[in-house]
């Protein structure tokens, strides 16, 4: 079965500090991996994706993610967090044969001044 896990329900970070939001996946073959962000009462906004190539991918708003095949992880990172980064973050996987996005349960990121 294909699945995505986000082990932390909540991550708290001080503004200016680096942040990491963790994601691991279980998909046969080489998956396509995505991060989305959801601000309160809003839809899901695409942040970045990994398809192939360089394991470090850069996305919107200064976010980046590191793909690690051996650990089946795709952690979201940002070198310096902003208060405005506070939101719900979803990791998602798309099987290599295509099809629906499968989402993790989400991680609430809280950045305090």
């Amino acid at each position, binding site marked *: 079965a294909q699945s995505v896990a986000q082990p932390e329900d909540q991550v708290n970070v001080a503004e200016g500090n680096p942040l990491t939001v963790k994601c691991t996946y279980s998909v046969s073959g080489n998956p396509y991996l995505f991060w989305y962000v959801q601000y309160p009462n*809003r839809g*899901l906004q695409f942040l970045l*994706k990994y398809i192939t190539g360089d394991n470090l991918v850069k996305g919107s708003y200064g976010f980046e993610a590191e793909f690690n095949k051996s650990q089946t992880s795709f952690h979201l990172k940002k070198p310096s967090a902003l208060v405005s980064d506070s939101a*719900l973050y979803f990791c998602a996987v798309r099987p290599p044969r*295509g099809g629906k*996005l499968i*989402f993790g349960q*989400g991680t609430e990121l809280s950045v305090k001044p």
Partner: protein
Amino acid sequence: EPEVTQTPSHQVTQMGQEVILRCVPISNHLYFYWYRQILGQKVEFLVSFYNNEISEKSEIFDDQFSVERPDGSNFTLKIRSTKLEDSAMYFCASGFRDRDTGELFFGEGSRLTVL
């Protein structure tokens, strides 16, 4: 920038009533999806739609649910007889190609409250 639009933004209905949620996907997209999210929790897949037919559906998408693309622009989700547990945020999404590596684009959602 093109976007997915959804209406209504919020609908309150009585249990047992029919509800239709509407979506206008991005115009050159070919694949369409409905997801739902209960109380800001996990985003759950309901159904995918391509070439005027359902390509995949989840266990949640039972006989009470149906989807339709009545014209070249709208994509609708109908719940025939709503239940309390149907209360959720429903998101429409579209993508240019299903087997591609592309991301899906989501609308702002329709919040359904069943009383």
